[in-house]
């Protein structure tokens, strides 16, 4: 408490302000209504000011001062002009706001609101100022045990801090629960429900600031992401991949002493009331491939609910987070490209939300990285609020130059920042094919290299014995192959002879059969001639020593086989000429046939053996 008071007394040194207030006292606030929402860790001020110009000159700027301790935690400021009341109330677009630093005002930060048209003499208008602050609630006490409720203190002045005179003003403080530990009682203070009302006060001079302190229980977890890196990677193959790395802390009252799982499980809402149990991320509809993990692996405590408008991802940290506890995790999801990427004037633009999808989370530093496809040009960013922009490059799958990355950096981000921003760029669709083509060429080259390697002779010494031996071996192999060919052809002729016999038995045409025999004979003779040089080569070659035996055996066997086949053929033809019966023929050739089959088998086997060499 003491510390708070000291802060206040340091801040408001009135001497300066009275001097300054005279300068801009032309404007008068005729009615002022302030609402302070303290129901979560984020403090939201909603102020509606009715301004009247009593001076001579027209006014184009309205000054809004905030004390330094508030200004440095100001996350979001939105000023609009409203007209009408109740249902007919309409509000204009947001007005431009600039920070100005008048001299000699060290402990105040001034925001100058530029009005769309000057406020002439005697005119009036209503401004609505929405200001969102983080870290304004101070846990008090700073350390609590597991069983204690989390108490926080909030301080402000009961009167509106303004350089202008305020005629009538009132203040409403909204608390999360209809309970309060203590609050500063001034005149006209009323506590009802979960609201504390101060005022109305009339004709307050500028810079008169009675301090109020509200001390109340706020068991909402104070989830603060100290750093959030959102990486949005655009792939023109149809996907926008979002990866969010959170570095989370529970910024409420720190836990002191023991954490007992037993107590926590038994009475979770008493022992661990302020613990952060789960977070809900509201993702766009049709989000897919959602994952939730940290650096040591998948975290299994998560659920996804989806409908046509949104996808809700409910995640629990690995452990319930008490005050002062930290954790880090990553969530990632894919989004359909057509929902977020559009074309305009020859440019493409990505239209996607800036802030984080978690509810009620304060982000101290956010880095939004938009990774565009390799080859994107003319990149520009349109954001609804100022942020620091830098560029880098990211090397990923099959990249050569790297993908351009736009980095947007911002401090103090609240859910109000969840607005869309746009990244414009040019990208030729043909570049899409670059990577597949690269792969195709890569493999082609590989295969060509393989072919070249197989066919090229890389021997260094052409005269070495092993090289010569290899050459000789190749020759032997070709010789053997030729030999095999001849053998196969011989066997084919045998088959033809057999076929002619079958024809004979069917048609009884002896002449045709004889003719077949003749041609076969001629062929066989020719083949035997061809065989001779091969055999002599094989016999002479030292490399073929171990094969020659087989080859010779084969030749012998084949000769035998040939003889038998001829014998069979002539026997059958003979018997046909003698017109003997079918059974008779079968009996006569049975013995021969058996031998033929055996020989044929052996020849086949030998051929196979040679084949395997």
């Amino acid at each position: 408490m003491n510390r708070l008071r000291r802060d206040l007394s340091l801040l408001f040194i009135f001497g300066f302000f009275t001097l300054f207030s005279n300068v801009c006292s032309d404007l008068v606030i005729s009615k002022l209504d302030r609402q302070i929402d303290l129901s979560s860790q984020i403090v939201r001020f909603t102020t509606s000011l009715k301004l009247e110009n009593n001076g001579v000159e027209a006014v184009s700027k309205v000054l809004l001062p905030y004390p330094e301790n508030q200004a440095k935690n100001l996350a979001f400021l939105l000023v609009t002009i409203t007209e009408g009341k109740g249902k007919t109330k309409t509000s204009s677009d947001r007005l431009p706001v600039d920070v100005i630093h008048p001299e000699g005002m060290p402990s105040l930060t001034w925001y100058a609101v530029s009005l769309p048209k000057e406020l002439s003499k005697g005119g009036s208008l209503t401004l609505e100022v929405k200001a969102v602050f983080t870290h304004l609630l101070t846990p008090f006490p700073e350390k609590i045990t597991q069983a204690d409720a989390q108490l926080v203190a909030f301080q402000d002045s009961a009167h509106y801090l303004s350089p202008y005179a305020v005629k009538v003003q009132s203040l409403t403080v909204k608390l999360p629960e209809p309970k309060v530990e203590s609050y500063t009682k001034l005149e006209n203070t009323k506590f009802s429900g979960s609201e504390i009302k101060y005022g109305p006060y009339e004709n307050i001079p500028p810079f008169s600031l009675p301090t109020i302190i509200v001390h109340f229980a706020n068991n909402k977890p104070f989830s603060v992401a100290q750093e959030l890196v959102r990486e949005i990677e655009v792939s023109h193959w149809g996907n926008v991949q979002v990866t969010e790395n959170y570095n989370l802390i529970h910024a409420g009252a720190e836990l002191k002493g023991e954490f007992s799982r037993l107590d926590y499980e038994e009475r979770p809402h008493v022992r661990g009331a302020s613990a952060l149990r789960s977070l809900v991320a509201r993702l766009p509809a049709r989000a897919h491939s959602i994952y939730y993990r940290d650096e040591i692996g998948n975290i299994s405590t998560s659920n996804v609910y989806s409908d046509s408008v949104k996808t809700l991802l409910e995640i629990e940290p690995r452990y319930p987070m008490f005050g002062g506890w930290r954790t880090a995790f990553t969530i990632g999801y894919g989004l359909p490209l057509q929902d977020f990427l559009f074309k305009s004037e020859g440019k493409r633009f990505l239209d996607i939300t800036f802030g984080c999808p978690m509810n009620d989370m304060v982000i101290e530093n956010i880095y939004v990285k938009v990774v565009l496809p390799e080859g994107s040009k003319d990149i520009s960013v349109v954001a609804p609020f100022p942020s620091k922009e830098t560029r880098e490059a990211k090397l990923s799958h099959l990249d050569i130059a790297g993908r351009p990355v736009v980095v947007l950096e911002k401090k103090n981000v609240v859910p109000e920042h969840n607005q869309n921003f746009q990244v414009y760029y040019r990208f030729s669709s043909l570049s899409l094919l670059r990577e597949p083509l690269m792969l195709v060429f890569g493999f082609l080259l590989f295969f060509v290299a393989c072919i070249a390697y197989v066919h090229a002779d890389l021997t260094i010494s052409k005269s070495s014995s092993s090289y010569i031996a290899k050459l000789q071996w190749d020759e032997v192999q070709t010789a053997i192959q030729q030999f095999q060919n001849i053998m196969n052809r011989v066997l084919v002729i045998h088959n033809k002879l057999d076929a002619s016999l079958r024809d004979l038995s069917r048609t009884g045409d002896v002449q045709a059969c004889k003719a077949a025999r003749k041609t076969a004979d001629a062929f066989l003779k020719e083949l035997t001639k061809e065989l001779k040089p091969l055999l002599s080569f094989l016999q002479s070659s030292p490399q073929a020593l171990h094969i020659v035996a087989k080859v010779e055996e084969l030749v012998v066997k084949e000769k035998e086989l040939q003889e038998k086949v001829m014998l069979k053929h002539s026997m059958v033809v003979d018997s046909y000429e003698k017109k003997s019966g079918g059974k008779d023929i079968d009996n006569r050739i049975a013995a021969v046939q058996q031998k033929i089959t055996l020989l044929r088998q052996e020849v086949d086997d030998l051929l196979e053996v040679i084949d395997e060499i």
Partner: protein
Amino acid sequence: MAAQETSQSATFRHAFGNVLSFAVLLLIGVMAFSIRLFSVIKYESVIHEFDPYFNYRVTQFLTKSGVYDFWNWFDDRTWYPLGRVIGGTVYPGLTLTAGTLWWILNSINIPLSVETVCVFTAPVFSAFASWATYLLTKEIKGAGAGLTAAALLAMVPSYISRSVAGSYDNEAVAIFALIFTFYLYIKTLNTGSLFYATLNAIAYFYMVCSWGGYTFIINLIPMHVLLCIVTGRYSPRLYIAYAPLVVLGTLLAALVPVVGFNAVMTSEHFASFLVFIIIHVVALVYYIKGILTPQMFKVAVTLVVSVGMVLCVAVLAVLIALVASSPTKGWSGRSLSLLDPTYASKYIPIIASVSEHQPPTWPSYFMDINVLAFLVPAGIIACFLPLSDASSFAVLYIVTSVYFSGVMVRLMLVLAPAACIMSGIALSEAFDVFTRSIKFHLVGTTQNPQDNAGDATKVTQNDVKSEKSEDTVKERSSRKSKKDKENIEKPSLVSRVEKRLLVLPLETSVMAVFLLVLLGAFYVVHCVWAAAEAYSAPSIVLTSRSHDGLHVFDDFREAYAWLSHNTEVDDKVASWWDYGYQTTAMANRTVIVDNNTWNNTHIATVGTAMSSPEKAAWDIFNSLDVKYVLVVFGGLVGYPSDDINKFLWMVRIGGGVFPHIKEPDYLRDGQYRIDSQATPTMLNSLMYKLSYFRFVETDGRGYDRVRNTEIGKKHFKLTHFEEVFTTHHWMVRIYKLKSPRNRIRGKTKRSKSSLQKSGTSPSSKRSTRKRNPWQ
């Protein structure tokens, strides 16, 4: 025209065979890889168990800091306050392999994380291992056997258990290195090429880098060489296969920091040197035999033998002196327990306490190699028909590995490739015989099949004899003529012809083929089951199926994540050594002891603290700068491998160094119990208290679902420790040491209460305090 066509068909057939076996090999590789992905699909892509976490951490360091920093890495986050020199105490093969893979992938812009690379290293290398098996078996018994063996190895459960995705352990790479080294040895033996001999030494170097099991190679190969010499199979090829391996291999092995001078100093390596000498003597004898006449040779033999005896005695004496001068007689504890299976349990509780160092049970053989166990004998028989240098090696390999696997469960892994090779040979030979007889019958259907079969078998018997004699004759002659190629091919040709004539009746062969296929199918089913159900659990995540679906127990990572985010970076965490690697890797906190059990005293200190009463334990932990104590407790959900079940080992190991911890104090009538019958020492030990603190409040009576009893001491308070975190299922409980100020307050409270309750505890406390090893 016809001729060309036939020639083309022959070459096509040849090419087709090559392409087919290439495709089969590719598919085997794909299968070996994908069967190991069950763990990723059923669970997630995460590092498994304990040791892999250390390897992962080392790999991370390597990728971050580079090789030179890695060699000089002094790790101060473990074995506090001693630290550990990582570069000099790890087998760097695995980490260097994964680091290189990662570096290559990243340099061609494929941004895989180190973790992903580590997770998939083991499956990739098991594909390599099955290809290496193909090569090895092909050298032994031909391509058919090679393909079968490769397919069997790709899915052998024993190997799967060590190489599922995420099981990032030395064995994953080492089995590949082992098989490949053997392949290169056999290849050198078959070709006599110095090129392969050099490659062999390099492969051996890679194996030494990867795993302590390299001693198996450096003992098995000399054994085989000795066997060849004794059976009269000495040849120059044998010399080329062996001598360069010993010289180059030993030099290279000495380059690995963790081996260093062990490569020449410890007796695990002496066998190779001895055989090295023997092979030189034999080579000399053969040389002299060649240049001398028989009479002269006899004279020379008598001369040399007398001189040689003297030399041998001298060398032996030196060897024995060397061995005797080292403390464990030159053998490390693990190796000693290989030779004498009871050694470890008698002398080194730390080795005995690891379940994978226990001898296996019979069911584990069936579980791990399944039907291969039945096929192995057939394979051994096939290796003897005919016995070549290569097949004798295979037989030796299987015999030794069967022995070693019988000593230590872990070495089942070495048995698996041998069993696969043998079964591959057996299956392929069996299929060969059966399909050939079927083919024979189908071709010869025109004739009476029975006659035929009878004839053929008769022929066979005669032929077998004649051809065998022929075979040996030819082999000898060819050896003399030094036609190496001939030598390899001759026996295979002959054996082929011989087998072709072994013809079985058609029905029998069809039936047999069917049964073999059935056997194979059974094997495949078993392997897939083993891969999917038995071996793919990462052990840091547990799941259980209940009626309301899958329940996940992710308590370990919950605790590690809590430690890593909510404690100071330099806080020291004490736990039993099992969790040391995980704590340093996942929580990034300094631990007192870890799974690299290099300092028995340090582990005994932690064991002593865990078995001491609270105050004494606090003193020990405080003197070690410990801030948090982590215990694993399964009593709430029934997780059996928790610290209470390991507690007796802590007592034993602690008692081994600090004699005031006595095992009988923790046992009631020789029984380990935690119920009301338990001894007071047990109920007052720190481990008991930290495990069961406030446990009774969960169900009112403190029923432990692992031990299936109610706990003995139910209501008690902690005076020197405070609970700071307990995971969702109470599986990990983390306590903080109270600061000294609080302790005094607690102590006064405690002493008051203890005075009222019992007068014995203060005195025992005082006496234990004096025995605190750290004071």
